[in-house]
């Protein structure tokens, strides 16, 4: 299920109600939508651009939980439960966002059961994603395994999955990739150098071509 149009295919009455409570806003790259620990102000429906969702440890170390794509609703669980935002959301592209105040959103959910069901579905997806993240962080043995998994996951998007040599656009820096798999920037750089040397991947500008998918799959399952 693509969440692309989470609130867009609602019945007309619900759609109208949503139009009335949303604020369409534009953010430049690098803008912070909300910060972990803040009291929830409301939800952010991402219409265009991508947003980096991260958790920060007390010692300042950052872990990127997810790169959110258009269609995703951010700040959802915090707004529903009233607990502080669990994550920090920062734009990595210029973004177009629909903001809805928490009280308005809660009232909207009470009044429109279709919207409520959609929200349940989206929360389910987020939960699955979080479990996936816990698994990758907690049960992978090495940074190499985690990187291989991440590259395979990225290469399975945009219809590249079936190709023999899938391509993917590396939108993140080595530092950010390190924060996604819970390792250091140096390790990521070393791993990439190793992958290139073994001709498993090949870099063409910011595009990465996976030359030897089988080898990457082996890396992702054991070692």
């Amino acid at each position: 299920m693509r969440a692309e149009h989470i609130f867009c295919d609602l019945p007309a009455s619900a759609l109208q109600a949503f139009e009335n409570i949303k604020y369409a806003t534009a953010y430049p790259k690098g803008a912070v939508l909300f910060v972990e620990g803040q009291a929830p102000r409301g939800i952010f429906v991402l219409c265009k651009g991508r947003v980096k969702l991260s958790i920060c440890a007390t010692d300042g170390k950052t872990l990127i939980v997810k790169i959110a794509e258009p269609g995703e609703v951010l700040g959802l669980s915090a707004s529903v439960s009233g607990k502080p935002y669990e994550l920090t959301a920062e734009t990595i592209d210029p973004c177009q966002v629909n903001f809805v105040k928490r009280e308005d959103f809660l009232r909207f959910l009470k009044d429109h059961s279709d919207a409520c069901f959609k929200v349940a579905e989206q929360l389910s997806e987020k939960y699955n994603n979080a479990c996936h993240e816990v698994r990758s962080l907690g049960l992978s043995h090495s940074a190499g395994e985690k990187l291989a998994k991440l590259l395979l996951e990225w290469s399975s998007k945009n219809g590249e999955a079936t190709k023999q040599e899938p391509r993917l656009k590396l939108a993140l820096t080595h530092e950010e990739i390190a924060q996604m798999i819970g390792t250091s920037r140096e390790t990521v750089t070393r791993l990439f150098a190793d992958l290139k040397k073994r001709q498993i991947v090949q870099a063409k500008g910011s595009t990465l071509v996976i030359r030897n998918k089988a080898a990457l799959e082996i890396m992702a399952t054991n070692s």
Partner: protein
Amino acid sequence: MASVLEARCGECVLRSGRVFCDLPAEALEAFDGIKTVALFPRASALFREGNVANGVFVICQGRIKLFLSSESGKRLTLKIAGPGEVLGLSAALSGTPYEATAEALEDATVACVKRGDLVRFLRDHREACLRVVDLLSGDLHTAYGRVCSVGLGRSRRLRALRIQ
């Protein structure tokens, strides 16, 4: 143990204070119509990671462990769920396989509902749907907590080891 449990949710004395159980009377009655109450002995599995999610499980009594496992058999506990909690929700609602294995830590009484019945129930009963949204938010909160402790706690420990 089974004595305090009623066949009908509306008559259950344990109901109050439990988010999903404390529904309006008409919703509870409808829920009675779709649930099957089952006893899971200690160490039996309610569902297994990777299996097709064909239902959800509302814990009436007992504690259930949710854990992830790797190919090599390593396990990572997600959480210990208690009475009133609903398991398998996210998988059932998103139509994906169960994300974890649920195993009874003690003899547990559980109300099971088929996926299709649940979806229909949630569409018909707005209050139940709101509760589910609430529960999922709580689950997500716990999961992010685990991401944090597994992803950041561990590296902090490693760093501490390196400093020594």
